[in-house]
């Protein structure tokens, strides 16, 4: 009890107006399983903060504790410098990973119910409903029952419900999961407009690296409930150095080690690593990678195997994740 009070006070003293949300030593245990392990981070006001990690990394559990849906086993959460329990509920809007909608109600009815739950005057609700449906390309479905909407439309409505009450902090948990490319781009535009036009603080959890990369100002990489790295997407990519990435699979995976040992001698290859998964992909980070391809293929052939698949791309956040954990994001 005393230590809790002390830690909260200590955190408050260090708090500046710049932070929308601060988590200090946030922990969640289910028996022996530690879902979130001593998570400490600060989210700045007006930024898009990405939580990047594979499924089961502890992203949703962390978010649920931050917004009050889940009681933490340990640690504290401050919102706008205040204890979370004292902050008005309307300060936060959450879009859960699952579609949380009343299927028998229309789009408008869903939004109006939530507006009522946040005590919005009906005129304000009506105005917000119109504007949100327009922004998320749902105006022509305003009076359609949710059960008759497509998956993409439902997901967009799911986001609209999270912001009907105009919250300061918006939590989007895997908002684009299962969306077609067109809907995803529409959603990304909407998220950017929340930040740029409405000055919202956005917490985005995703296991889609391109989404985190495209939207986030800063990214926290989390795995097994632990914070591994926290920085801007650019800085994170820099942590693993410059150069492009060659991904290569051999016809005979048994030869991976021999080939990797041989390729280390190639001038221009900065780093070589085997992804610890079923694919057995070898990733090679190299400067001027295109020019190195003929030599790489020649050396592979010399080890009496052949390249079954090879590609070249720029450094991504997934490479950062692989660098930090030794495994891919989609495992």
């Amino acid at each position, binding site marked *: 009890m005393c230590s809790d009070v002390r830690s909260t006070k200590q955190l408050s003293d260090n708090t500046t107006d710049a932070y929308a949300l601060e988590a200090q030593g946030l922990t969640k245990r289910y028996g022996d399983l530690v879902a979130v392990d001593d998570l400490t981070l600060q989210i700045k006001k007006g930024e898009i903060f990405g939580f990047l990690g594979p499924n089961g990394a502890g992203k949703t559990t962390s978010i649920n504790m931050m917004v*009050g849906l*889940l009681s933490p086993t340990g640690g504290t959460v401050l919102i706008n410098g205040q204890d979370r329990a004292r902050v008005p509920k309307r300060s936060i809007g959450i879009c*859960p990973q*699952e579609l*949380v909608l*009343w299927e028998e*109600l229309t789009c408008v*009815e869903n939004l109006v119910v*939530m507006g009522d739950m946040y005590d919005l005057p009906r005129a304000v609700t009506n105005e917000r409903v119109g504007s949100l449906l327009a922004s998320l390309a749902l105006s022509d479905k305003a009076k359609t029952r949710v059960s008759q909407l497509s998956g993409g439309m439902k997901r967009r409505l799911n986001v609209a419900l999270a912001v009907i009450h105009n919250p300061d902090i918006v939590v989007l948990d895997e908002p684009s999961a299962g969306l077609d490319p067109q809907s995803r781009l529409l959603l990304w535009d909407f998220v950017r407009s929340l930040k740029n036009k409405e000055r919202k603080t956005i917490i985005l959890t995703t296991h889609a690296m391109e989404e985190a990369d495209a939207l986030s100002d800063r990214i926290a990489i989390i795995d097994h409930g632990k914070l591994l790295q926290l920085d801007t997407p650019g800085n994170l990519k820099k942590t693993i150095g410059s150069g492009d990435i060659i991904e290569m699979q051999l016809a005979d995976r048994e030869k991976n080690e021999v080939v990797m040992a041989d390729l280390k001698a190639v001038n221009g290859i900065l780093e070589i690593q085997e992804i610890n998964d079923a694919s057995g992909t070898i990733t090679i980070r190299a400067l001027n990678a295109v020019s190195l391809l003929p030599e790489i293929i020649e050396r592979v052939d010399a080890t009496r195997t052949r390249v079954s698949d090879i590609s070249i791309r720029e450094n991504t956040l997934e490479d950062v994740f692989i660098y930090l954990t030794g495994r891919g994001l989609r495992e």
Partner: protein
Amino acid sequence: MTVKFLSLAIKALKQTIRDRRSLFFLLLFPIVFMIIFAFAFGSPSSLGTGTAPHEIAVINLDQGATVSTNNTTERINSGVNFTQLLENITYAQTDTHMFTLNNVSADQALAMLKSRSLDAVITIPENFSQAVVSLANASARAETTSDIGLRVINGSTAQLPVNTTLPKQSNVTAQVIVEGDTGSAAFGAAQGLIFNVLQQYQGQIQATAIRQVDATLAQNQSQSNASIGYISAAVQPLTGTRSLTLFDYQAPGLIVFALLMQVSSVAQDLTRESDRGTLGRLKLSNMRSFDLLFGTLLTWILIAIAQILLLLGVAVALGFSWAGGANSIGLAVLIGIIGGIASISLGLLLAAFTTNERQAAQLGVLIAVPVSFLTGAFFPLPNEILGTAFGTTFQVYDLLPWTQVADALRQVLIFGSGVGAVAVYVGFAIVLTAILFVVGVISYSRVRLRPE
């Protein structure tokens, strides 16, 4: 700004109305039952004439009589004797008693008759013993004088033996009333047996009187037969039940059955809310537990009102003997609301512990249907008396609020009773519902409305 509980109530009402499966269970299902029961039990039937004991009550008003024999006087109460006979008599060649006598007051007996806890009520009049004495005397006189003609023919000097005095002639007559619902098959069977037993009793009285005379006069039993008009029996239909059928009993029960179906629907509705995550969304908002619970209550009360009115309309259309006017409908709706709240409370309790919608629906039906039988919604139940309070006899089933509601609905809808007549039922229904409501609300709030 819209009041939150009202917004939630409207939301839930829209969801229910738009959900065909839910509407089927709440409205169509009980209506189908109503139609089936109306066809099956809408007319008096001859069923129920087996050898099971009939539940009856005897109201013995007999004041007794004084009998003088051989210079001795004796006080008798034939009403008690007749009651004992009813209690002890068994079906021929079996040990099964014809009747189970319920020791209740006249008012209690009438209430039990109305709720079909009793098949018949026998009222023995004040002058029953006097009528019995009249019958015995008449029989004795007839037997004493039966040989006079023969004695004259044989040249006897005296018409009657010395010291022979004829019993006093009195013409007291008494009528035993057998009261019951003439539309009930069970009453028909019980009444036939009671008449038969009364006839046997009169036969015994006559036989005893004749035996005593013959012993005194040392003569053989004659073929004389005194008039048996001293004691008669009459059927008195239960007030307002002259044309009642089993369906009339069942129709209010089917309304209670419909209200009990709410258990499943409420549990399903609330479990869906937590299962789909919408409850979590609501918990993140400014919604208070009160808003959700009161909103839920409001929605289902409105549905209960719709159920009561719709089912009553269907029942009347199918021949239900509805007594009472608009007032009885108003009172029935208020009573039904209590039953509805009891169902909502049980639904809350289930929703606290069921993990998914399907489980809630199945468990709800699994509870609602047997409880419907236990409340006597479909058929009268055997008496399992717990005790008596406030002038009313309480059965084990009365611990269920829906039993009280069903009994009160029958009183109001079949007999046109007012608030005063159903006050005890309603009072107990409110108390039992309040207990269930508190348990339901606490369980649901603790399990579902707190952060995980």
